[in-house]
């Protein structure tokens, strides 16, 4: 059975419904599954809970689903650079659960690894700890964080083979690797699908067991949020 689909809409056929929870990879605009996000927008499903480190920027990435009002709740660590997000949040149209970035990553890792909860020092004594069980280990206070398991994971990789084995590129790996594991089903978009056997087994970043459906989304424009450079003289 091939994992390859012709486009994002076909790859998501039969998988989307209202009220579902999506786990979405990416950091800022780096490594976001933009073709799949656009297909979710076009499908028009509503009342979504989206687990993602960021919420895109205005009109880009998850910002598209905010603009259409399809997201009911975000679970994120950082949502700056997004006016529409701030507006909806302040107007009470959007529910937000702020979660420390490392705790978010570990909650998804735990969800994917069959661990219902874990203890961490992150957030002890802050409003993140409010309402959470605490416990002392070796004289240190820890808070209990529950794992996250979504209905569907959407990620972006660099190269994958038809067995789903995937390689990420540079810092575009970020949350993609862990989000792929945090749902029973992961759909991935990549910049190139290569023949089975052309990825060195030792070099695989994400084993194909997690990736059920695959599209090639190339060509990508790849937007940069903050372009910073040095001049030759300074180098």
């Amino acid at each position, binding site marked *: 059975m091939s994992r390859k689909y012709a486009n994002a809409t076909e790859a998501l056929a039969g998988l989307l419904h209202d009220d579902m929870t999506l786990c979405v990879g990416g*950091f*800022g*605009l*780096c*490594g976001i599954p933009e073709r799949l996000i656009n297909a979710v927008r076009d499908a028009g499903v509503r009342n979504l809970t989206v687990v993602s*480190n960021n919420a895109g920027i205005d009109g880009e990435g998850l910002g598209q689903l905010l603009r259409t009002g399809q997201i009911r709740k975000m679970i*994120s*660590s*950082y*949502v*700056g*650079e997004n006016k529409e997000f*701030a507006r909806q*949040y*302040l107007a009470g149209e959007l529910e937000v659960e*702020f979660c*420390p*970035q*490392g*705790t*978010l*990553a*570990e909650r*998804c*890792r735990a969800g994917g690894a069959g661990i219902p909860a874990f203890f*961490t*020092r*992150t*957030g*002890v*004594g*802050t*409003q*993140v700890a409010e309402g959470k069980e605490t416990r002392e280990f070796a004289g240190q206070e820890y808070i209990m964080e529950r794992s996250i398991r979504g209905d569907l994971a959407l990620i972006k990789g*660099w190269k994958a083979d038809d067995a789903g084995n995937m390689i*990420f*590129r*540079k*810092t*575009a*790996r*970020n*949350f*993609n*690797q*862990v989000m792929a594991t945090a749902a029973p089903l992961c759909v991935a978009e990549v910049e190139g699908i290569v023949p089975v056997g052309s990825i060195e087994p030792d070099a695989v*970043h994400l084993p194909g067991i997690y990736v059920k459906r695959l599209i090639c989304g190339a060509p990508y424009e*790849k*937007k*940069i*949020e*903050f*372009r*910073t*450079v*040095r*001049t*030759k003289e300074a*180098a």
Partner: protein
Amino acid sequence: MPWTRNEIAARAAAELEDGFYVNLGIGIPTLVANNISDATNVTLQSENGMLGIGPFPLEGEEDADLINAGKQTISELPSSAYFGSAESFAMIRGGHIDLTILGALEVSERGDIANWMIPGKMIKGMGGAMDLVAGVKRVIVTMDHCNKGGEPKFVQQCSLPLTGKAVVDMLITDLGVFERQLSTGRFRLSEIAPNVTREEIAAQTSASYDE
């Protein structure tokens, strides 16, 4: 004369030791990178999944897949390594990072830090700051001694939502350096910026500290 932002960063850079793995926050901490002496071999971590941050790329060599935690384009070094967010924070939470240097809105006399939220105003989220202050071996805060309204930021008790409780080990402001002592948990004024007096610092501080 109080220290400039770059002088604060240079003072913080003096805390880096050869072989250290370091995570730098946004603002004054970012300036620390330019003040590391060539004799000190330091590896910078970026919490979005990289060890060994290189300088900004040359014009035309920017790569959208290679950014720091502030979403700025950067470059890689021969010694660089990439990894995912779960592993990145495992190394932070697991105490493998030697030092983090962060900015702050407020620091309390007991070492509490507030730097992620101003209710009703700044609603962006904490990013990785709570993980860093909880997990990194040593936490240094660099900030202006007073806010734009001239009110002290080194206070008895933080009024803003906390990022971490009793986590700051050293505070470097434009007026001086305060080190928190393990034995008492209190800060001690250990250095004063040139031509600044102890009285001037006391007048601009609402926290209690040892001299």
